[in-house]
């Protein structure tokens, strides 16, 4: 291996690395190792002068391997691979050493040990680098279409952006109408625009766009293929109405005798057994709820069939499946409210007058169960005192640890709802902190906190009791005034915690997307790549990446769409570099690797009178399971060959030489 010429570059990352260990010493140690031609340290290796330093060294010292000891390869591997490319080297001759995340950030309490560890890790990389070789990836074409999962404001915005860029979009929505949570809101903060008024035009745009096809009342059940060429299997749930015939006239809904609690009104209102989700539904097509339909439950009625002028009712409809071939997938399934009945001390679900913020939105909405009047559910009377509890379940070790990011602003908006509808009412807002962080939010907060009969009290209510008349009695310790306050309220509104939707867990397993500690989708990088995932071609839009208010959701969705457009516009995807490769001289054709491959990428066939394994480079995803199985070492994985990994292991097991 006399032709191996290694350059080692140790980054200080400012004080992140340099403040714990001495990078110069690590570089000096590396300089004495075999094949190392040059070793240096620099304050910010990823900066433009840092990159230039490596680039010039490659030319000057005729380097053919580069080791960068800096942050995680998940952060800057592509950056430094770019440096190699610019200097005319194959990018896979780079070896990153993670001395920040895996060393200085976690061992700063024992700096000598951290330095010893850094030297070890660099030495292992030097040993490994000798066995690196050039890897050339192949390119496969990209299908210029996308699936957007979820038709809330995030999915709507992402679909429109993709479609306007000339990309065919399939929008999958689990409910019968797009619109999502935003459609349920009365107004939006801090501008107090009518939510429906700004949302419905967009919903109509989606339904009319020639590049968008909506699959409502549908769900994704399987995804196969890979980035650029996904096969997405969609289940169309039976609606018992032939939507291709239906005109949305609503005659069936009008005549239906069946009744059920209205989901769109958060259980406060009543709907029919055949129903539109809400008046402005897109697509405006009804669905039969088989649990409450008299035909499905008792075998009588059939009124809807009789009144339908176009004969669209079809009681025998069954579920259907379609397979969509797309290049990219945008996940925009949003969030769900935490089950507030788990906060048993607040009595939600037990006491009628303890309601969620979303229920208050419905009460305040002109198309809601009370036609926009704020009345308490127990007796329909106007509440005189209203308590609003912030962080109900959020920022709570026993429930959800993180912040919901819109509860504070929503609560201020709810103060407005109540004061606007009931000017004489007294409003008590119980907060932990008021986080009015967005554009215009602080001004919004200042405006309403100074209103007459509005009190912001810093404290969380203790156990809530219900009085004989349905009023709610509780104590709150006000930490600002160091007083225990006894409260009697007619209505209590809980600004609840936010969690990922229930269908996220099965979906993320289908998509192979990791999740964060809160269960939300894990982005590729929290700051730099917050709308991409570790799976190429799968993008995140909106609250599924973490709780967001509407402005943030829209910005995030547009960014996800732009990122997906960029991915699709490139026109090709590169095969993974970590492909399995066969040494045909060693392969005996034993076929052990064939069933091990989860993608069916390996076949064994006759070649020059000998049976040998063959890898399909498009199907192979680069897991390396076959290489771990091969008894002769004929099957190897690019960038993770036995030699490469073992040379690293030997050094790490034996310690710094």
């Amino acid at each position, binding site marked *: 291996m006399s032709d191996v010429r290694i350059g080692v570059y140790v980054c200080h990352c400012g004080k992140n690395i340099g403040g714990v260990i001495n990078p110069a010493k690590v570089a000096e140690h590396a300089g004495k190792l075999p094949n190392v031609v040059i070793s240096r340290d620099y304050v910010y290796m990823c900066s433009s002068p840092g990159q230039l330093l490596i680039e010039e060294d490659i030319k000057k010292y005729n380097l053919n391997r580069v080791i960068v000891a800096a942050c*995680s390869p998940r952060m800057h591997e592509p950056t430094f691979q770019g440096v190699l490319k610019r200097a005319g080297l194959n990018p896979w001759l780079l070896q990153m050493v993670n001395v920040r995340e895996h060393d200085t950030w*976690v061992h700063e309490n024992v700096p000598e040990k951290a330095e010893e560890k850094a030297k070890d890790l660099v030495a292992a990389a030097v040993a490994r680098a000798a066995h690196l070789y050039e890897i050339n990836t192949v390119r496969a074409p990209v299908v210029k279409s996308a699936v957007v999962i979820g038709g809330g404001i995030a999915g709507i915005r992402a679909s429109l952006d993709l479609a306007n860029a000339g990309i065919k979009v399939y929008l999958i929505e689990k409910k019968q109408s797009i619109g999502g949570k935003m459609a349920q809101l009365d107004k939006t903060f801090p501008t107090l625009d009518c939510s429906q008024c700004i949302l419905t035009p967009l919903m109509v745009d989606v339904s009319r766009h020639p590049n968008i096809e909506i699959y409502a009342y549908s769900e994704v059940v399987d995804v196969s293929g890979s980035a650029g060429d996904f096969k997405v299997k969609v289940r169309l749930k039976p609606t018992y109405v032939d939507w291709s015939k239906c005109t949305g006239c609503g005659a069936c809904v009008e005549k239906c005798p069946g009744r059920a609690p209205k989901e769109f009104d958060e259980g406060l209102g009543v709907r029919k057994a055949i129903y539109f989700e809400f008046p402005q539904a897109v697509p405006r097509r009804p669905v039969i709820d088989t649990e409450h339909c008299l035909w499905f439950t008792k075998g009588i009625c059939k009124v809807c069939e009789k009144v339908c002028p176009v004969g669209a009712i079809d009681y025998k409809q069954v579920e259907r499946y379609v397979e969509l071939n797309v290049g990219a997938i945008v996940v925009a399934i949003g969030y769900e409210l935490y089950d507030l009945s788990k906060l048993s001390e607040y009595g939600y679900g037990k006491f009628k007058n303890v309601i969620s913020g979303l229920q208050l939105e419905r009460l305040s909405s002109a198309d809601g169960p009370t036609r926009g009047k704020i009345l308490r559910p127990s007796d329909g009377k106007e509440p005189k005192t209203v308590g609003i509890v912030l962080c109900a379940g959020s920022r709570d070790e026993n429930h959800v640890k993180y912040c919901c990011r819109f509860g504070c602003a929503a609560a201020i908006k709810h103060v407005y709802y109540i004061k606007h509808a009931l000017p004489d009412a007294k409003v008590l807002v119980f907060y932990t902190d008021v986080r009015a962080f967005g554009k215009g939010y602080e001004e919004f907060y200042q405006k309403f906190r100074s209103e007459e009969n509005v009190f912001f009290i810093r404290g969380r209510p203790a156990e809530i009791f219900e009085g004989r008349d349905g009023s709610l009695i509780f104590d709150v310790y006000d930490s600002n005034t160091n007083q225990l306050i006894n409260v009697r309220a007619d209505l209590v509104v809980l600004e609840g915690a936010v969690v990922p939707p229930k269908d996220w867990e099965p979906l993320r397993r289908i998509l192979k997307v990791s999740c964060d500690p809160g269960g939300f989708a894990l982005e590729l990088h929290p700051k730099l790549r917050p709308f991409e995932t*570790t799976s190429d071609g799968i993008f995140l839009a909106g609250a599924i990446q973490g709780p967001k208010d509407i402005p943030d959701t829209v910005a995030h969705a547009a960014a996800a769409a732009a990122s997906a457009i960029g991915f699709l516009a490139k026109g090709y995807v590169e095969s993974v570099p970590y492909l399995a490769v066969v040494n045909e001289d060693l392969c005996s054709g034993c076929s052990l690797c064939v069933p091990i491959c*989860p993608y069916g990428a390996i076949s064994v066939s006759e070649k020059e009178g000998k049976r040998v394994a063959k890898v399909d480079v498009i199907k192979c995803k*680069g897991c390396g*399971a076959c290489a771990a199985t091969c008894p002769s070492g004929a099957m190897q994985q690019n960038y993770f060959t036995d030699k490469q990994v*073992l040379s*690293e*292991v030997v050094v790490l097991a034996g*310690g710094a030489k």
Partner: protein
Amino acid sequence: MSGGEFEPRIVVFACNWCSYAGIDLAGTSRIKYPHNVRIVKVMCSGRVHPEMVLKALEEGADGVLITGCHPGDCHYISGNYKAMRRYLLLKKLLGELGLSDRVRLEWVSASEGERWARVSSDFVEHIRKLGPLRLKEVMEGE
């Protein structure tokens, strides 16, 4: 091993998608764990060849920790199940040599920085109690 307390030397195999990311998260969250662990990245825990584990022990490691995605979460569908089956067979083999206590398989997801800190601390303490292996010194001595 020059005086002082015995500091075990642990080689860790971490899959790229879950465990390596989880270990990174421990870093970004500044969660402390013992310095004794040396991490080797592989794309999938299913890539870990038994020879890699044996080589680590042979070359001086006092313990080997294999980490992968939780069951059902594998980026490559089923690599972690393959890793588990290989691990159970390997444990049998190591048992014959009296070494089965020195290798462990753990699931660490990309969000489990804290779990990684716990898993690694536990394993380091476990190996510290077992004492040094020094297979290489013994073999070279023979």
